[in-house]
């Protein structure tokens, strides 16, 4: 085998892993850079700010909700209070890595908030779906740091009541998730589809906006099986990420 043969074979193998980047990636990066606050101050300022925020969050959790100290989902800047994991979904086998943690599976309602100021409304500017090994993902992206208060509620059917008209719509699948964002707007900055069918995904089959009225945004999600999900807020840009286990 020549060096070029090996290089070509390896390149092909890596190509099949990576595919091509989304053509929108440069624009996405540019938007993230433009909306990202420049942080050039000394590191201790950021560390001090993070420590103060953490103390405030812990205080709010302890004072405001002393009896319901559910397991928090790591990885986001938000406060998360999930209901204990659904018994019908065994957690995956723990990995050998000492830093790894098992899938914290939520079956009940879940509220996610950030420490960002409340009004004005959080502007939703994009919604994306994706399927990956182990989970299907919905990403709701916000134009800035404001997100409003987010509540995710699983349900045993895919019927959702359209906010405003009161009409009932039935989404694809057998089970559902209702994502309710209070203090948000899904029409000013949003130009995407409001009914996304992802029938090729193993778990998330349809995502449909069922409300965007008086600062309350609701998205219904049709699932193929009972919801076992995680919700996290990520930053830069601010986005709500909901992952539903698909295996």
């Amino acid at each position: 085998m020549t060096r070029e043969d090996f290089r070509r074979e390896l390149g092909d193998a890596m190509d099949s892993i990576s595919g091509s980047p989304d053509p929108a990636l440069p624009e996405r990066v540019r938007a993230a850079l433009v909306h990202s606050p420049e942080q050039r101050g000394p590191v201790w300022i950021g560390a001090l700010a993070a420590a103060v925020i953490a103390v405030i969050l812990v205080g709010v959790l302890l004072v405001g909700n002393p009896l319901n100290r559910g397991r928090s989902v790591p990885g986001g800047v938000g406060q998360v209070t999930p209901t204990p994991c659904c018994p019908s979904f065994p957690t995956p086998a723990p990995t050998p890595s000492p830093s790894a943690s098992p899938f914290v599976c939520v079956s009940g309602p879940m509220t996610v908030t950030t420490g960002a100021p409340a009004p004005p409304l959080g502007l939703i500017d994009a919604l994306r779906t994706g399927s990956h090994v182990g989970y299907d993902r919905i990403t709701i992206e916000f134009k800035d740091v404001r997100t409003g208060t987010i509540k995710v509620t699983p349900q045993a059917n895919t019927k959702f009541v359209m906010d405003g008209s009161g009409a009932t719509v039935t989404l694809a699948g057998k089970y559902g998730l209702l994502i309710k964002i209070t203090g948000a707007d899904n029409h000013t900055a949003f130009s995407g589809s409001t009914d996304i069918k992802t029938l090729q995904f193993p778990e998330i089959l349809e995502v449909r906006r069922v409300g965007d009225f008086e600062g309350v945004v609701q998205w219904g999600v049709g699932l193929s099986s009972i919801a076992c999900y995680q919700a996290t807020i990520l930053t830069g840009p601010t986005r709500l990420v909901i992952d539903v286990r698909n295996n």
Partner: protein
Amino acid sequence: MIGVVLEQRPQMIVRAAEGDAHAFAALIEPLLNPAYRLAAVMLADRSAAEDAVQEASIKAWRKLGQLRGDAGSLRSWFLSIVANECRMFRRQRWFSVVKVAEVLPLPGTRDHFDDTSTDLKTALLKLSPDERLPLVLYFYLDLPLDEVARTLGLSPAAAKSRIYRTARKLRSDLTLEEVI
């Protein structure tokens, strides 16, 4: 476009250092494709790779003052930040679940790679992300050895040794001449 960006790099770095986000975005735009490919192979997850590149871009902008050397150092500096971001992504909870995540082919698409490529892909995915990194830089992104070394934070000799050692994990019968 890329040629223009390369010619104007020094000015763009100055403007970016002064806080011009658009200048920095233009500066790194030609690097996003290799950065994505590096992240996608390291993480074996395309969506996470895009997130990692985005996060790395923001970090790179914030750390622009730490860029050492001339504008030619930008690529290895940026790719090293992307690689670090991938390591951080892996430490996050999701990779406890999708530890050996393998990208599934999209429905209706045909995998045009032959069996050899599939075997190599399987072997590649068995390597740790840090082991894949030198192979990605050298074979996939076609970086010269000294740039691979800068990205890895190693001497050229150490980088060469690491590439060869890792390549031998994929094909034990490879000689040094067949690799480098």
